[in-house]
């Protein structure tokens, strides 16, 4: 029953200052969390410039978004949740741009696979990044957060604001598609 619920956890000092609109606190939050957000954005979007835009967007909108933060999760988890939502917008914009490029006859980035070649780690990472780009954004976020950033399914569920079972399902489908994609590239 809602009236029997225990009161929510107390916000930490930084979150409280952010909620009160303290711009110094915003700078501190940036210093603490920008690297995590940037790394996540780079892996999720696969593009350094787009990732940088995403980091900017996340921290510019943080003072407004923090009003609904109740302290039940870590501030970093909350910030990454903002990043996921912004990434969805970025992804839609990117898809529109790519459609426009195709219509204008631009050549898409191609990759010449060498089926028999023993690939190096860099090639393997690049192949996985390319395969990730083909995934729906929800599956991509689940894969990056769970597999690459090694977060628990519960934490990822909080970040993407979805049930844990949904996260596991997305992860399952993502892994399956990525295995197939790597196989298609002929990597060994």
């Amino acid at each position, binding site marked *: 029953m809602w009236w029997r619920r225990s009161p929510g956890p107390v916000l930490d000092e930084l979150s409280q200052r952010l909620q009160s*609109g303290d*711009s110094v606190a*915003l*700078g501190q939050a*940036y*210093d603490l969390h*920008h*690297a995590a957000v*940037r*790394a996540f954005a*780079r*892996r999720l979007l696969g593009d*350094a410039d787009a990732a*940088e835009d995403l*980091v*900017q967007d996340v*921290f*510019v*909108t*943080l*003072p*407004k978004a923090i009003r609904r933060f109740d302290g039940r999760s870590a501030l970093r988890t909350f910030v990454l949740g903002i990043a996921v939502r912004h990434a969805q917008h970025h992804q839609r914009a990117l898809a529109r741009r790519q459609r426009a490029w195709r219509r204008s006859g631009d050549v898409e980035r191609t990759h010449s696979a060498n089926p028999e070649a023993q690939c190096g*780690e*860099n090639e*393997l*990472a690049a*192949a*996985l*990044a390319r395969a990730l780009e083909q995934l729906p954004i929800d599956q991509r976020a689940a894969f990056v957060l769970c*597999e*690459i950033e*090694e977060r628990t399914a519960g934490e990822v569920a909080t970040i993407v604001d979805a049930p844990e079972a949904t996260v596991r399902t997305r992860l399952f489908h993502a*892994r399956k598609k*990525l*295995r197939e994609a*790597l*196989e298609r590239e002929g*990597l*060994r």
Partner: protein
Amino acid sequence: MTDDELLQRAIKALRDEELGDAPAGARHRMLQAAGRARKLETRQTVVTLALGLALVASTAAATGQLQRAVAALKAVVAPVVPAPQVVVPQKSNARAGHYAANLMRITPSMPACATPTATVAQVPVDEAAAVSPRERESAPHTTSDRHVGRMRVAPVALEALPELASTDEALQQFRVAQRLHAQHQWQAALAAWGKYLQLVPSGELAPEARWSRAQCLVRLGRGAAAQAALQPFASGAEGGYHQADAAELLQALANPSEPTQ
């Protein structure tokens, strides 16, 4: 190497990949953009509020409700107007009963206390009907009396009145009663307080109106009615802050020959 092993290798490779540092000035740009966003949000809030207020005001003006809305707003915003207190010389907390004694000093002699016949909630519809002919003749005919006289012409049954009269009308009536009370026109003030209580029998200012009405009854020497009106205050059922004064007045009314100290 199986597909799963290949995927695990790829994951590890991507995890270990160097991502590079933040570009120079990114923090500064972010803080500047956040400041601009905050200003924009404040501006949007102000504009939205102003537009909303303008819309409400224009709608009220178009429907002829503007004055009423302003009056209602004033009633909400303005502090509660205290009921007029009878100016009693030398009123001091140092001497208990001084207030009642002073009030009684200018009160005409009255018969001994009788059993209350009505509670204060049951305000007589026409206060003038309860006034003795001698009082009515002796009262000077002032503008205020003529105003009160108009109120006497068309007494309205309590049952017929709406539970809540319009705020501006009730406030106006309260002010009229206040003015008459301050001018010591007890008879007219009594009628005016009665009229106000008919309009707002259970409003925020109703206890003060009842208290002032009880004072008028004391001043006019209508002992039984005054006692009935003071009883709820003395018992603490209403206006607890007048309890001590009401008790003293009741005591003084019960023993008019003994000076109250």
